[in-house]
Structure formats: structure tokens, C-alpha cells
């Protein structure tokens, strides 16, 4: 299930059962943090309906947590599950790049949503 890039067609059904665990690191309620969170919520709602959880970690409150995921830039999004861990930095404005970064693909189970929608 990791190597789904080679054979996209058969894994699609498998992917439907995958649970996405995302973690967003922010530092206070800065515009960048808020923008990143809003963008992330939108992307997840569109592409990962009901199969995700977002954990927001505010490093201003828990500075020691920055070490565990080796956070340098803010905001940073970490894909904890499915493995392997992926990292995206920035305000997540470009949905396509977020999808590529998180390796999220369109779900065939949702025919109402045409392929390519939401990209760009």
C-alpha cells in the first residue's frame, strides 16, 4: 500500500479504507497559521471525507514538541498516517501541491466529483 504510485488503479479501493492522521504545527494564532489550518480543512473535507483527523499543535504552548517531528518552519503539516511520514511546509495555498505532497488521490467512489476538480 505504500507503493501505490506504480499501480494506481488497483490500490484505489484499498485507499478508501485508509485513515489519514495529520498533524499541523503552528506557533500562535498568526495569519499564516490560520490560513494553513483553513486550507487544510478545506482540502481534507474535499478529498478525505470522514477519513481523517487533524491535530493542531501550537508550539508556543508546547515548545518541547518541536523536537519530536524536527520542526523548523512554521506552519508545517505532517502526515503521520498512512506511513511513511510526509512533511509540507507553508500555508498550503496550492491544493495540488498539498495533494501531491500528501499523496492523496481522487476517490473513484465519488463519481460526482470529476477528476481534476479542486486542482489548481
Amino acid at each position, binding site marked *: 500500500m505504500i507503493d501505490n504510485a506504480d499501480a494506481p488503479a488497483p490500490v484505489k479501493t484499498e485507499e478508501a479504507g485508509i485513515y489519514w492522521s495529520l498533524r499541523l504545527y503552528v506557533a500562535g494564532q498568526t495569519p*499564516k497559521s490560520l490560513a494553513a489550518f483553513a*486550507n487544510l480543512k478545506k482540502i481534507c473535507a474535499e478529498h478525505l471525507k470522514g477519513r481523517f483527523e487533524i491535530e493542531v499543535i501550537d508550539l508556543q504552548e508546547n*515548545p518541547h514538541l*518541536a523536537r519530536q517531528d524536527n520542526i*523548523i*518552519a512554521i506552519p508545517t503539516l505532517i502526515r503521520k498516517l498512512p506511513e511513511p511520514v*510526509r*512533511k509540507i511546509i507553508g500555508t*498550503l495555498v496550492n491544493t495540488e501541491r498539498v495533494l501531491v505532497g500528501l499523496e492523496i488521490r481522487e476517490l473513484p467512489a465519488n463519481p460526482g466529483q470529476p477528476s481534476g476538480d479542486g486542482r489548481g
Partner: protein
Amino acid sequence: MVIDASPPIALETTLSKCPTGILGLDELTGGGLPKGRPTLVCGGPGCGKTVFGLEFLVRGATVYDEPGVFVTFEERPEELARNVASLGWDLAGLEAGGRLVIEYVQVERSEIEETGEYDLEGLFIRLGAAVDAIGAKRMVLDTIESLFSALPNEMILRSELRRLFRWTKDKGLTTIITGERGENTLTRHGLEEYVSDCVVDLSVRVKSDIATRRLRIIKYRGTLHGTNDYPFLIGSNGFSVLPITSIGLDYETSSARVPTGIARLDAMLGGQGYFQGSSVLITGTAGTGKTSLAMAFARETCAKGGRCLYFAFEEAVSQIIRNMASIGMDLGRWVEAGLLKFHAARPTTFGMEMHLLTMYNLVKEFEPQAVIIDPISNLSSVGNEDEVKSVLTRFVDYLKGLGATTMFTDLTSSKSYGEYTETSISSLMDTWILLRNIENSGERNRALFVLKSRGMDHSNQVREFVLSDQGLQLADAYLGPDGMLMGSARVSQQARDREDTARRARELSDKKRSFEARRALLESQMAVLRQNLALMDEEMAVAESETKAQGEALAKTRDDMAKIRKAD
């Protein structure tokens, strides 16, 4: 190099310094790095940037009570700890004691995707947390340039770096930023444009196959600093920067004397030997007995209970001990007693500076009263004349500061013959003894001169230096009508002299005897004459009395005649 203790500048405007604890660097910079400001340390790979930074923190934590944060972008903390364990730094122990935090910031571009704006607040928060955890006063970023390869947006990165350096200043952190040397710039990514207070450049120079590390302070705003290339070493105790200029001439001078180990040499040097803490140079061509003379001094020092450190650059220790046994010197005894310490190494093993550091460290450890380097001429194979001279100058100054007597031997080539030193250091020396082979009537003999000896009434005489199984002796060189005689010529001349003396004594006693005989003769003659004289006197007296008696008889007869004639 050291800033005047009372500069005519108001106190607030003077830059306060943060001592690094790195041997030699604080002297060079007049107290250390700019306090509360960033310093850039740049250099090529393997120049010692990381060690420089780590030592700054370790010394800060252990000596100056200033905890520090080491931010490593490249090496893992455990690798780092392992690498510097050989320098005797216990990073884990310092971390456990809350004196040091090693913050590992791992950056790998491959796993980072970027979309939209971001900043490095995460890094700031981590550094801030680490600084606050131990109340750090110092920080090292090694090497922050890694971020350039990890983060795609250089513009953001540059503005964030600017913010980072501002942040360290606001926090009052004395910071070292390391940077890899670029093609034509000090650092590959132009870090020097952010760090304007102090820039230190580390490099490695290879000359005659021997590498020397060099340190240069390119810039140090608002302070006097040494501008030269200074050699430095990473030895077993960490970093040491060695100023070329001498440490100074302000050491105390002792008037105590130390015997040379040869009684007659003591006599030549004002009767008491060398000055304690002076420098002695023994020059001579091959086989003139330089080592023997030096060892005699070593033995004498040990016999008096002093410690002697012997740097042998030519012979193995066992060989020296064996050879010295042949002239009646038992050195093994003093080695066992721990008073005599040998350090034998080929000069070409290290660069000049490494030798100096090794010597410094050994001297520091052993605290000798006498230090012997045998011979210094071999050192010229690793450095040029200037380098050797500068190293020796500093070493002599250092030893004089400690009050240890220094003895150097120097092999001169037979061509130059005499008052010349291979490394032109004679002006540094207080006492200079010249040994010379003199060839005469089919043999070579050793002659010893005291060329100079500062501060004492020394002999101007040439002595013959005799090595035998009885030990070392100085004999008077024989000055005869044929010039100076030495060796067997001297011995035969002495025999002839003895013969002459005996002959003259014999002649004298002969003469004395003949004089006495003549005297006896004369005296006996005088006795005869005196006897004759006495006889003559006697006869004279008899004649006188006879004449008188005759006269009286005549007068009586005349009276009688007149009475008879009844004259009137």
C-alpha cells in the same frame, strides 16, 4: 595584542568580550569574542570549525559558568560526542548537568514539500526553549548553511536568518555561526553579510607535505586584534592558537646557579655553572660530544633531585642510555626514579607547531627544572628558518617564564665551522658553548670554548673536552711553540715536559754538589791561610819582645858603664 587595561574610551562604548577559553585566542582578540553578538567562523572542510564551536561551549560551561546550546544541523549528537571524547570533553555529562544542550536540527530536502508562505518560527521556538532550559549565554550554529539546501525558498530563508541573528543579539547570546568556505566568498551562501562583528577564518596550509592549521581574524569590529595568520592545533586538549609573536620578556630572572655536571666547566662559567632558568646552546659539528655534554647536565640535575625533560629528535631513548653508559653515565637509574623523562620523536612526524604543542604539554605535565632539546637543527627539516626560530623563541620564553633551564644542541656542518647556528637562534641564548673537532698530528680531538655567557665572568680559555669511560673531563689545551696541542700530542708533550723537569732537577743537584765541593775546598784553603797569619803574628810578637829586651839591656849596660866611669 592585549588591549590596554584602561582605555580612554567610556566604559559603555567599549566592546565587552566573552572569553572563549581557547588557548591563545583570547590573547589574540584582547579578551575573547564580542559578547552578546554573533561571530562567523568559516573555513573549508576539516578545518576544525565544529571543534572550535564545541570548545567555546565546553569552556564556557566548565570554566566561565556560561551554559551553552549547540545546534547541530549535520552531525548527530551521539556522533558529535564520540568525535570529541578524545579531547576529553564529556558532552553527555555536561548535558546531564544542565550546562549544555545539543539541539539536533535534522534537515533533508527530500522529505519537505513547500507550498505557500512560511517562516522559521519552529526553529526559533526550539532554540528559545533550549536557551531557556539552561539559561544559556552561548550558542553555536553548526552549520546553519545546511538550511539553504533544505529549504527551497531562499528569500524567506535569508530574511529569517537576519531575524535569527537579531534574535540572538536580543537574547544576549554570544553566538558562533560556522560556515563552509565558498569559491570566492568566505562562505558558500554569503553568511558574512549577516554577521558584521567578528569573522574568524580557519584554513589548512600544506607545505613540504606537512599540514599546518591557520587561524586568521578577518574582522573584529571595534577592537584591536592580531591580523596575522596564526598557526593553531587541535591537540589532545582541544584548540590552541599559537601567537607568532613571543609571549613577552617580562619573566622573572633568577640569579641562582645550576652546576653543569662537569666541575671544570663550572669553573669556566664563573665557578658555579649556568644560571637557573637561562638558555644554553651547545653547537658543534658531528661527534663533538654535544649529547654527552647535555646528558652530563641532565644527570647533574637529576642527582640534585630536579626533574629533567629530554627531547630526543635524533636517537632512540635506549640508544642514548646505552651510549651514555659507555662514558660512565648511568641514566636508567634516573629514568626509573622518575626524574628523567625522554620524549623521542622524528621531527618529520609532525609540523613545527605540533612539536611546539607537544613540548608545551609535556613541560606542563612534568614541570621540569631542566629541558633539553637534542638537536634543534633537525627541526629545520620541517620548517624554514623563520618558523623554527619563532617556535624556539616562544618555547624559550615559555620555559624562562617557568624558570626552567633550557639546553639546546645544534649540529653545525663542518663547512661552516664554528660560530654559526643552523637556525640562527644564538641571539636568544644566554650561554653558548662551542664544541669543535681539531685535527692535529693524525688525530681529532674535541675542544670546548665558552663563546658567551651572559651575566657571569666566564673563561676565555680553550679546553680539551675528553670523553672516556671515566666520564667527561676538561683538560687544559697545551699551548706550545707548535701551536695548540691536544690529545696524544698533548700527552706526549706533557711527558716530555715531565722529563725535562726531572732532567733540570738532576742538573741542578749536580751543580749544587760541585759548588759545595768547591766551597769546602776554598774553606779549607782559607783555614790554612788563617793559620799562617796567626803564625806570622806570633813571630812578630816574639821579634818585638826580643828587640825590646835587647834595647833595655843596652840601656842598662850604658848606665852601668857610666856608673863605673863615675861620670857627672
